[in-house]
């Protein structure tokens, strides 16, 4: 799993927000231990993502072509019509 050091390097904005949330909740500046607790909670919430990012591998070219080769004619609607089709909304 990604180390806390890596998390801190990549998610400074999130850590700053966590510090702010702790400060708001407690009415005072959080101690280092409290911030660390929030950081660990953040890491646990995103653990699947960290694990997957570290293990994801590009698809072999034959698998990519096999996947794309399964495309079918589904009508002349465009990808820009998705919200209209799914939500019935007008963009």
């Amino acid at each position: 799993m990604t180390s806390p050091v890596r998390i801190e390097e990549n998610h400074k904005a999130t850590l700053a927000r966590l510090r702010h949330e702790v400060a708001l909740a407690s009415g005072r500046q959080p101690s280092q231990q409290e911030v660390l607790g929030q950081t660990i909670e953040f890491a646990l919430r995103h653990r699947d993502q960290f694990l997957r990012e570290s293990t994801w591998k590009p698809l072999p070219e034959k698998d990519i072509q096999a996947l794309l080769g399964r495309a079918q004619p589904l009508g002349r609607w465009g990808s820009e019509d998705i919200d209209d089709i799914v939500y019935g909304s007008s963009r």
Partner: protein
Amino acid sequence: MTVVVDTGILAAALNTQDPRHDTGRALLARILRGEYGTPVSSEHVLDEGLTLLRTRGGRRNLSSLYGDMFLGKDARPPVLQMIMTSRDDLVRAFDIHLQHYDRKLSMTDCILAVLAQDLRAVLASFDGGFDGIVPRIAQ
């Protein structure tokens, strides 16, 4: 490096009659080759795409392929890493939704913007409504 994948790219790649099929197909191929890093998406894109395919496609095998891309099948891992939305993500997406109300972004769009911001990722989407919010690739 990470790329967040929007529904439109996948729909265009899977529908040979989509006006952007060739562009979507080429972009998805580059994404799956890892040219933009780890591809991720949201359970809301899984939902949106399956609803779309059932409504306009009605091809069970294509819906199956779409779902497998997110969920994997048998021993095969998913080709897109699905990130589940937390309450904090939803609150921030709602803020983006209201802040950019005139752009008519769906909540799914706004959730993808939050993911891209959190992961410092580029967003693969044909939707110009994201411009100025997160970096975007469309071809």
